[in-house]
């Protein structure tokens, strides 16, 4: 019974979210339809390694995301961000865990991101993944890869972002010739006014059809932001909220996919010196 369950989960992961074991889902991004590659208001190096270049204070965040409300398909991660003085760059480190005992991935990511001028940031992640399954063709596998991202403020309102995960595509298994997929994401964020932001991403995961993500974020006050969005192919509806307290960001999201059901997540971001500050929207 257990083996069958593991197999079902494995097929689910491989066929629908083969990449998710390497790139975690985050509640703040999920709440806005999964769009965020050009968003400057988060600190997720899995969404765009360049984003942390805009962070000005040492920050720590942790997130939990239950895909389809299944513990076995959940993501857990913790990230520490340390900006150097005088905008010389930002170092980050992330530990992530996806899956459960019979099928899981442990990932370690080291990131360096830097602003170049006031408009452009570039980030690189160096990743080490440890994969373990009970599947005989895969077994245990350790892989190195890298990720790169960039964000560019074209003007006061429009920001562009690009993110590339794993261009080198190391093999997962020699026997089945499967590789960790290459992921390409590009998108834009448009700020209509101080309170309202629209985001749109196009994402291509190798061997899967391209997906589109559109999201909106509205600030009711300096403390409360509401999010909504939709993802296309497969279709999903997303909603979420962000609460900003002194030194603290709390985010929560829920998404609904007609076939597979609900997913939900929660995240906490904590500024070690003072309130997490993001220079881009201030």
């Amino acid at each position: 019974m257990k083996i069958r369950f593991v197999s079902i989960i494995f097929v689910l992961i491989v066929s629908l979210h083969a990449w998710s074991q390497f790139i975690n889902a985050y509640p703040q991004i999920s709440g806005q339809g999964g769009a965020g590659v050009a968003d400057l208001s988060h600190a997720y190096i899995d969404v765009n390694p360049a984003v942390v270049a805009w962070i000005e204070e040492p920050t720590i965040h942790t997130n939990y995301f239950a895909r389809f409300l299944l513990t076995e398909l959940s993501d857990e991660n913790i990230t520490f961000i340390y900006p150097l003085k005088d905008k010389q760059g930002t170092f980050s480190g992330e530990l992530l865990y996806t899956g459960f005992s019979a099928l899981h991935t442990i990932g370690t990511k080291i990131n360096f991101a830097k602003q170049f001028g006031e408009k452009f940031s570039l980030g690189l992640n160096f990743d080490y993944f440890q994969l373990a399954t009970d599947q005989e063709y895969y077994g245990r596998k350790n892989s190195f890869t890298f990720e790169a991202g960039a964000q560019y403020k074209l003007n006061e309102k429009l920001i562009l972002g690009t993110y590339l995960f794993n261009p080198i595509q190391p093999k997962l298994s020699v026997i089945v010739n499967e590789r960790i997929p290459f992921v390409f994401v590009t998108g834009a964020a448009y700020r209509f006014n101080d309170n309202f932001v629209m985001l749109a991403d196009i994402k291509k995961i190798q061997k899967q059809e391209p997906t589109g993500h559109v999201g909106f974020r509205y600030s009711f006050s300096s403390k409360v932001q509401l999010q909504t969005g939709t993802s296309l192919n497969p279709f999903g509806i997303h909603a979420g909220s962000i609460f900003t307290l002194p030194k603290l960001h709390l985010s929560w999201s829920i998404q609904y996919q007609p076939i597979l059901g609900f997913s939900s997540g929660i995240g906490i971001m904590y500024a070690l010196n003072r309130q997490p500050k993001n220079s881009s929207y201030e």
Partner: protein
Amino acid sequence: MNKHVKFIIFLFSFSILNSQVVTDTVKSIQGDSLLQEENIENKIEQFTEKAEQEVDFSELTQNLEYYSRHPLNLNTATYEDLVKLGLLNDIQIRNLLTHRQKYGKLISIYELQAIDGFDLQTIYRILPYVKIASEESKTSWSLRNVKKYSKSFVLTRFTHTFPLAEGYKKDSGGYLGSPYKLYVRYNFSYFNLLSFGFTAEKDQGEEFFKGSQKQGFDFYSYHFYMRNVGPFLAVALGDYTLEFGQGLAMWTGLSFGKTSDAIYIKKSGRGILPYRSANEFNFLRGAAVQLKLTKYFYLYGFTSMRAKDGSGITTDSINQEEYTISSLNESGLHNTTTSVERKNNVKENLIGSRIQLNLNRLQVGYTSYLLHFNVPVVPSSDLYQQFYFSGKQQWINSIDYSFLYRNMNFFGEVAYDGDGLPAQIHGLMYAANYHYSLALLYRDFPRDFTSFFGSPLSEGSKPINERALYMGHEIKFSKQWWLSSYIDLFHFPWLRYQVDAPSDGVEFLSQLNYAPNKRSQFYFRYKYESKKNNFSETYAKIPLDNRKQTFRIHAAYPISDAFVFKTRVEILLHKYATESTKMGFLAYQDVVFRKKNSPLNFTLRLATFDTYSYDERIYAYENDVLYSYSIPAYYYKGSRTYFLVKYRARKNLEYWFRIAHTLYVDRTTMGSGLDLINNPAKTEVKFQIRYTF
């Protein structure tokens, strides 16, 4: 009086420029033009989609390279000079000349904005290649000047792909020669008044100094070209090209068809040009001259004798065996026994002339030439080739015209090949006002018309069996936003290759452009194309609809003075007959480093693609070493990466290195036949050196 008017214009032209534009414009005089680069890349991409063969586009870049080193002085440039620049249409050229005539020489580059038809995008486009100077050109014929200002260069390029294809394996019976490609070129030039040199090329799989290629390279090309010598405006010996009228009768240079520059459909023939490319098919070999008869009349004479490759067959007649040619091969590859046997098996002789009248607003040309093959050309018995040219000799006559009336440019050409009805093409470009321009074109190429050297705007690769109406628009919403779109409705009155009935189709393109400054461009493009193709699943092979829709988002923007990012996402939807819709996808990210005065520049691309089959392939331009072009079709599932670096070791010594890697993730082999590679990945390496002296 003129001076006062001019001063007012000058002040006015300054006042309409905001400070950002002034800054950008000044920078652009010294810098490159991303907009122009994007424009060229677009043209080449769209050309390749239609041509589906390897083409050397160096003619295009050589011309612009010359003008970037020797900017054209807009105060002294003649009509012919401005046509040769190749970046302005007739309306703009005439408006510039009229402005100069009325108000005297331009005082500053900013004054261009006061001339009708010169919008900001046009100015951005020409700025790297023009200048405003009051002095006359120093480019005159004198031995001292030739010695002082002439330039020569030697360029050599080596290309190799690995792992090797099956055709290179010993005893495979495949390719005769080695797998590398070699290219050598020498060129001497004195401004654009004198040019001579040679090009030699060995393609992949061709032999080198052995077997069928004992003379070394498979292809050699020589040219000698002079301008403004005595009564001759141009003299060409060796290999040359001709561009006349609308390209119906004679256009052997590069010819672009429908592009996203929807209103730029008129061809402006540049007459005789030296041939310096490595394409092995479309050029003439012999001699050509251009003579100025009077102030308004020009006379051209040209002759060519060269050998081409033909697919030949020997047929038995009652009395004797006869060798005939069914088609001419354009690939230039001679790397298998069959292709070597076909090499140069047809002798083509051509003699002709042209007289041209150039008035201020009217140009009329009459071209006539006689073409002779040493063996008869007899098309195959396929029904679609029933009306193709048959025989050994062809005499073509054509009349072309271009007439300007206010902001309207009427143009066209009528050509007759001595058989059936004449072919014709007529068009209109109309710049209604700053915000709106329109282009219309009607073309009618009868099913029995054949022009071996013709290359007008057409849907097919040759002007035959086609009747069509084209309409293009350009709407400028502001200096930064504009929309280009065209629709082309075409009808093929007779059968075509793999279309067993008369058929019709439509091509529609709409592109919304945003250029916030001269170095940034963003656009969204939608393209729809519908044609008929035989549906082979039925016995009767009924032509059914074959539709393609393309959605493209493209962004090219500088992130600093030295770095430019280019991002593209493209989706293609393909619906053929009753089959379900299939998809193609391409996304890439480019990082370009190009710093003024830096000896090093580079380009990096990471691309991912995913198409259902080869039919959903997507083309994308790739930066390559100088005078080499790469526009691969991305198909199946995988990724492609390339890295190109250029290093200028000394002022006169440049190195290029390029590595491109393709990986398929949905299969274990690449290619087919002799090109089959038993590996899902392949790597191409190019190395090039240019020494200038």
